[in-house]
């Protein structure tokens, strides 16, 4: 795999984690119950740690700027996250569905990358796969729990419909497609095989809508808004000692 493709892949992974982690942190203090306040705060902290691990590889092995600069000084058009990870905090159903679709994708992706020929990536994948297990367990439990009454199941179904094209958009082909089993089509297939039975068993419909791709398109307003908030303090004085 060439260096340009590796850099592209690492930015996709890191930016997804950083942005979804930031969205998770927006539930701190305002989640519907205290256990979820704790859960989303913990997941935010985990995702920041994972983003740092990927940015560290970019810096130390692939010649990119130091992690803090990558996170806080890049412009919106330089980010490679999927639109799904930047969607704002709206209804609780959308938050849970996003978490489920994203965590499942991360689960199958990391399992795959644990064997990746680029060793630093394989090491990080093995390290964080075990942590992500808890995220997926959490989201999966809520998917089942919220299918129990008609009203909650309907609201969840609406959220699934809204998020589905963005979820498929996570699997957009990169700057240079990787060989199987590391290609996006294979990872998406594994993702569908993991989530479809869970959705069906809980009584949800699997949508038939198609993907909205966003990683390389003009930055979405959500991404721009998120980065403006997240980068604001750092940019006041990038040379400050913390």
């Amino acid at each position, binding site marked *: 795999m060439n260096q340009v493709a590796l850099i592209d892949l690492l930015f996709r992974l890191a930016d997804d984690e950083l942005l979804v982690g930031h969205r998770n942190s927006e539930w701190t203090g305002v989640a519907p119950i205290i256990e979820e306040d*704790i859960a989303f705060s913990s997941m935010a902290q985990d995702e920041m740690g*994972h983003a740092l691990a990927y940015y560290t590889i970019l810096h130390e092995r692939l010649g990119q700027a130091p992690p803090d600069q990558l996170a806080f000084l890049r412009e919106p058009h330089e980010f490679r996250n999927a639109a799904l990870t930047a969607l704002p905090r709206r209804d609780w159903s959308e938050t849970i569905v996003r978490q489920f679709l994203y965590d499942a994708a991360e689960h199958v992706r990391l399992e795959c990358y644990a064997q990746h020929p680029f060793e630093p990536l394989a090491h990080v994948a093995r390290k964080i796969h075990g*942590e992500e297990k808890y995220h997926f367990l959490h989201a999966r439990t809520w998917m089942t729990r919220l299918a129990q009454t008609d009203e909650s199941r309907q609201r969840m179904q609406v959220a699934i419909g809204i998020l589905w094209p963005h979820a498929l958009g996570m699997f957009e082909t990169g700057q240079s497609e990787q060989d199987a089993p590391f290609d996006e089509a294979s990872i998406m297939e594994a993702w569908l095989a993991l989530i479809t039975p869970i959705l069906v068993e809980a009584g949800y419909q699997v949508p038939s809508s198609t993907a909205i791709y966003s990683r390389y398109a003009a930055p979405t307003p959500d991404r721009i808004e998120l980065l403006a908030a997240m980068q604001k303090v750092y940019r006041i004085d990038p040379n400050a000692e913390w």
Partner: protein
Amino acid sequence: MDAQIWQLLESVSDPEIPVISVVDMGIIQGVAVSADGTVQVSMTPTFAGCPALEMMQADIRAALEGAGYERVQIDVVLNPPWTSERISTEGRRKLKEFGLAPPPPMQGGVDGAMLLFLDAIGCPFCDSTNTRLESPFGPTLCRAIYYCNNCHQPFELFKPL
């Protein structure tokens, strides 16, 4: 000399669980002394986003420098990854004494994790296995919250990883 370094590291405690040392936690992967006398310590985080990592690095450095080692180099490595199997027997005993249920053996796989959580975890206070998971997340990244139906105490589990 290595033995003395390990002994010094035994005195450095985990900032989040002060009764247990960084050695018992299994986060020290190795120590070596190079020809010029530099002490090299390689350590690995329990969870990648662990906020205590920098504090532990500073504590390790302080312990070694305090004992007269002038050149100390601490490397953070991710391979092999930390797992809860790395916690020593002594460490597990201390976790329980501290009121934290030690992590059960990890089978791997999401379904494995599901089963583990449905499975009864021993209450660190009364040893009953009549317990239930309240939340897979707790006050630190490495803990989950349980409730003991027998002694009616909430307790925390050190998550298997």
